[in-house]
């Protein structure tokens, strides 16, 4: 990411590069990967539905659900990620200048990582669609014998998608202030509030969403059980992958986090062999100073 920054004093360069440079790199790369993931997850459920509607281009969801997905229910967490996320605290960033090498080595925005997130989106959409349609088949979904219709499948699958992408955000970040809690859980709550309000609009306007939450979905225990199941099942592969990655192939910021977690002094890390590009960094700083 290139941007123009003015600094008043030369000593501010240390914080600018090592702290904000590292954070910005992590935020931007993480945000882009996550953005692809959440849209692939959502869009591909529409595609899988086409296999069950004879490819007639019937959207699986109500028109308004489609329009508001990227505006209301999944936008704020990504913005919070891009603006506020900190993978390593300020103090540790400055104590471990080698963390800046993550950006130089392009660890967080390499093709395997981008494609990995897209693949995560593909798998998530498949799991969500398959589990939702298999649980909501032609049988009754409530104790009063009512059967599933288009509005029920749409509301259930959409709820699963919104829950899953927001909980995926909660799993991916390691830094929770009141802002992150507010936007993540708030987005999910906003979906239900929207469904409530939209459902009370006249049926000529709200069409298939008329009273779908209050009358149809919320009183059905199956709806809630499906959401719990689908969310946990969809996030399970990522969770297991992340646990294995942290154990066997931790990234530099992961190592710093894990050791900080154990209260370890960072002195041992700094005593490691210096990098050749730290030599380059010193050269750059010297040249700037000389100018």
């Amino acid at each position, binding site marked *: 990411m290139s941007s123009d920054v003015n600094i008043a*004093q030369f*000593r501010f360069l240390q*914080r600018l590069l090592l702290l904000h440079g590292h954070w910005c790199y992590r935020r931007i790369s993480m945000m882009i990967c996550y953005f692809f993931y959440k849209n692939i997850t959502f869009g591909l459920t529409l595609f899988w539905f086409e296999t*069950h*509607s*004879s490819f*007639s281009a*019937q959207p699986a969801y109500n028109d308004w659900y489609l329009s508001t997905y990227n505006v209301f229910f999944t936008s704020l967490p990504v913005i919070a990620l891009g603006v*506020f996320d*900190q993978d390593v605290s*300020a103090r540790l960033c400055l104590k471990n200048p080698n963390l800046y090498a993550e950006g130089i*080595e392009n*660890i967080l925005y390499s093709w395997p990582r981008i494609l990995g997130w897209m693949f995560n989106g593909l798998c998530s959409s498949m799991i969500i669609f398959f*589990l939702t*349609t298999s*649980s909501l*088949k*032609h*049988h*009754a*979904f*409530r*104790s*009063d*014998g*009512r*059967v*599933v*219709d*288009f*509005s029920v*499948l*749409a509301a259930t699958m959409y709820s699963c998608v919104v829950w899953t992408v927001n909980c995926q955000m909660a799993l991916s970040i*390691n830094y*929770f*202030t009141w802002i992150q809690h507010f936007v993540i859980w708030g987005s999910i709550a906003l979906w239900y509030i929207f469904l409530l309000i939209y459902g009370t609009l*006249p*049926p000529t306007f709200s069409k298939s969403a*008329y*009273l779908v939450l209050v*009358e149809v979905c919320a009183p059905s225990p*199956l709806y809630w*059980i499906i959401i719990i*199941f689908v969310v*946990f099942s969809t996030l*399970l592969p990522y969770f297991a992958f992340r*646990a294995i990655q*942290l154990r066997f192939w*931790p*990234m*530099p910021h992961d190592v710093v986090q*894990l*050791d900080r*977690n154990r209260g*370890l002094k960072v002195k041992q*890390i700094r*005593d490691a*062999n210096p*990098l*050749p590009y730290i030599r380059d960094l010193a050269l750059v700083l010297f040249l700037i100073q000389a100018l």
Partner: protein
Amino acid sequence: MSSNPTSSSGAGSTDPSAARRNSKRPKYSRFTQQELPACKPILTPRWVISAFMVVSIVFIPIGVASLFASRDVVEIVDRYDDDCIPGSKSAKISYITGPSDKTCIRTLNVSKHMKAPIYIYYQLDNFYQNHRRYVKSRSDQQLRHNRSANEVSACKPEDTANGKPIVPCGLIAWSLFNDTYSFSISNRNLTVNKNGIAWKSDRDHKFGKDVFPSNFQKGGLIGGASLNESIPLSDQEDLIVWMRTAALPTFRKLYGKIHQDLQAGDVINVTLKNNYNTYSFNGKKMLVLSTTSWLGGKNDFLGIAYLTVGGLCFFLAMLFTLIYLVKPRRLGDPSYLSWNRNPGGR
């Protein structure tokens, strides 16, 4: 991190307010300095294993409960479209489109005790009620208000017949299911309650009390049932149920309810009228009698899926415990850092 004095301290003034006025340092707040109180959870071995264990401890009982609920449901499914009309496909099609009497007698055996209320459904297979053009082919305005009887633009090709608008217009209404069923046990008729089978919101808010069918099924091709023109749409519950389009190509719709128990070993005689043509598109028709549980109908999938995922999480918890015990990661080991893995350079 740097706590140096302000940059303009060369003035020599000892007045703190003057020093503050000369400083360009921005006002400190935890938000702008990104120092908000935060919790920073890390996926340590303890968290990973506990998370998997908690998920498996929660999922396995839910799976057992769901499976028991599904097993409690008693369901009788009878596919009758093949047996009611013998012969090849073309023979079936010419029979169903002909004028002959289409009564068919079927026998259902009750294997287990079924508690009231027992729900009667008709199930259709390979019927794409979720096709885009089919779903579009209705006029919500016309269904709701008498004054909007002429708003039929979305209903093509079933919008007008003989120059007059069709009420209710559209393909969904035109293809209304018209098989009928009547039940008897040992020559006693079973009363089927056909009230309250549609959603209340549909009856009250989507279909008008002052809208009556007119000009319906009067075109060249008849697609399904005809409607009684003296009953308003809000009371035509079969139509309302049918017009709530299904999500998937295999679906059931509620036909009625039976409010008495059925004992194990009962033999139910069904007199049905096999009117609806599903033979042209290789569809299937089935009659279903089913009880319900607190969770709904007889669907084992969720119970089995919960048990599977719960078991998988338990297995993963054990696996991770093994990994962390057998090969623990030495803390503070600098060799894990990527820049130390190839010390000579990139």
